[in-house]
């Protein structure tokens, strides 16, 4: 019973954590990326994390519905 409740709380937390992850990766990329400053990539990987997160979110939403083209899949 307790485990079920924890799982439920965990599920509620996931979108907030995902949102925080998205935003933090974007903030880090937009403030620390060396390409606009020095014209070269320092391979920090911030942009990869940010972009991977957005692609992963698109796959997740498509899989679980709520996409704008959902009616086409019916």
């Amino acid at each position, binding site marked *: 019973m307790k485990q079920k409740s924890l799982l439920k709380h965990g599920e509620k937390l996931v979108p907030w954590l995902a949102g925080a992850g998205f935003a933090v990766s974007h903030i880090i990329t937009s403030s620390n990326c060396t390409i606009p400053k020095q014209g070269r990539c320092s391979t920090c990987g911030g942009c990869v994390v940010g972009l991977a997160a957005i692609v992963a979110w698109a796959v997740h939403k498509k899989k679980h519905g709520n*996409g*704008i083209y959902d009616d086409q899949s019916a």
Partner: protein
Amino acid sequence: MTTKAREFNRALYLTGVMLLISADAQAGLTGQLEATLESNNSQFDSESSLEERLDLFYQNVDDGLSANLSLVMAQQSGNDEAELYQLYLQQDMNDSADQISLGRFFRADTLGYYSLDGVQYRHRADKLIMSLYAGVPGRIEAFRSIDADTLYGVNLQTLPVYIIDYEMDANLGWQRLEQDSHEQRYHFGWRANSDNETNRPLPAAVSMSASYVEESSQWEAVQIKTRWDLEEDDTLRIDYETYEPASNELSFRDQFYSLYARGNQTQFKAAYQFDYDYQQTWSMAARRVNREYGGSGYAGVLAVEQRSSKGLLFAVKAEQLKLQSERVASLFLDVDKTLGPSVRGGVSGVIQQQQKQLVGDNRSLGIELYLEHMVSVNALPSDLHFNFTASHIWNSRLEDEYRMLLSLGYSFGGAKQGMLQ
């Protein structure tokens, strides 16, 4: 921008993204996240920029409450920015007859496109919409700034009325900018159009608008436009306009389009357009141009557009401009293709010969490619979209120019790309 303001805007970004992802459309929240990487040398110096943009909308139809947050974090020319574009609350009252907006919001009028930190009230009556606004005007990146401490004004817009086959509306505005001194502007506008073909030879559409600046006793942004439907497929337009471009950044097409000028210009234009068939349209135009910088002269344009039933658009345009000390001849080519339900692409090309006093005889060749793709997930288009644009201009007597833009965005809760711009 102060460090505190930047950190505050970043905190807003963090909160906005968390809200957007956790609440989604069910709570009335929609929005868009977009990352853009751009590299160019079009401002006479090569530079790259990275931009992360968030647009967030909240709407509660039952309570008539809506809100918008729009902000951009960017790195450009070594500067680290987090700029708040919009943050406002909007409340509809009395069955939407009254509306009040509070915060930072965009406005567009003869001053250009700008943000206003303040309040706007709109009242809709049976035949009239009245709006009052007051606040501190701000600057939007790449657009001309408004140099004033406060701005306030009132605008009256009539709802359409029908007078002898014509649908007409008008607007009247007053605006005051305050700084060390003040500047007052009066706006006038009137439009009439008719679908009734028996009105020939009267124009099918007429519109006039202008602003008058009291302190300098000057008219600005004067526009008189007429449209005459000569036959079923033939249209003649005769226009007169004066304007000053609001943006300093020109698009790929604009920088070749010799009628775009930095500074004031006046032009008188007559354009004739006819549809050869439902897929092919021909047009020709002649202009008399008077410029603040570069003198006056004439321009002529001949263009043809061909559409195919398979989503292909093919356009060719030839233009010749002759000003006092300047002669420009251009040939444009555009191909635009819808490649599928989620992919669109196109290529533009231009050949131009310029004879200018400062530059001499410069020949240019420019090419631009673009691709827009709604990324597929599980074989269906998703809310994820991808844009790519690249252009290169080879000049014989000037520095070559290039621009590359790459963007990836995601629309939350059905907010479509472009809708939030």
